């Protein structure tokens, strides 16, 4: 069976290249992903929750609903990023057999 072409860029979040050992570089990549895509999203959700509350109190329900919708988007982004990080960790713990 002919080998597939090697991917041009190695990414721990790509299923084809996942499964490497937990090197310091991989740990930094995961930490950056958590910082950029999980924590930032959750911090924004927290801010938007407060904005939503303030807008509701100020009698601006339409704007409050817009913030609420943004919270949903932010939570979805955080869940997606966390799931990807989890998959990388699982692949590192139990690498696929070649």
């Amino acid at each position, binding site marked *: 069976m002919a080998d597939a072409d090697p991917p041009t860029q190695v990414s721990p979040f790509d299923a084809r290249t996942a499964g490497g050992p937990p090197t310091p570089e991989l740990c930094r990549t995961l930490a950056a992903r958590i*910082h950029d895509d999980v*924590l*930032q999203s*959750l*911090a*924004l959700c927290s*801010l*938007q929750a*407060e904005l939503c509350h303030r807008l509701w109190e100020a009698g601006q329900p339409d704007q409050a609903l817009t913030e609420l919708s943004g919270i949903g988007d*932010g939570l979805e982004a955080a869940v997606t990023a966390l799931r990807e990080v989890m998959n990388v960790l699982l692949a590192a713990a139990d690498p696929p057999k070649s």
Partner: protein
Amino acid sequence: MIRVVLADDHQLFREGLRRLLDPERDIQVVGEAEDGLDVQRLVGELKPDVVLMDVSMAVVDGISATREITRQWPDVKVVVLSMHAEEAHLFQALQAGAAGYVLKTAKADQVIAAVRAAANGGAVIAPGLTNKVLAEFRRMASKLGPDDTLGHLTEVELKLLQLVASGLSNKEIASKLCFAESTVKNRLSVVFQKIGVADRTQAAIYAITQGLAPISDAAEPPDVRSAAR
């Protein structure tokens, strides 16, 4: 009116901050920057009262940008708005000249209060992090304090302390230094007070821990001044 510049590489978060601050009657967001270099340019151009600064940004990070801004425009107050709750980031920000350090997960009221406090010349540190600042202060004080105390002792007082650490009695010290025994007693009381100990045992321990080694034959004290430095 407090004029504010926002610096964060996450556009959505900047927009959220703007929506939070805009309704405040005494606060006006006058500009937004997405990296640490851009914010320096904006500050030079707009001369805001306060910068809300993220830490992790591209090109130039928020700590370096804070250092440069507070150096070039000391009237501009920087409040670091960070995701990091570790003391390393907090201390770096304070050393860079930040007037405040608030977590991104803080309540909106805390962020607004931090902007107002910084604009009025105050300083704000996230409530959960103040204990880290106090712990660091205590650590530094315990490290630096004794050295300063030794520096306040006179040459004779240092010699007395060394002789006490060598285990000599007041009578033996008096004999060695050609003092009256009562003089030794009085002067040692002053030494104990200066170094903050209650008795000669504590004084001896203190002297040894500060590098004033006991004199082996109690005859020729080493250069106590250099040991005190």
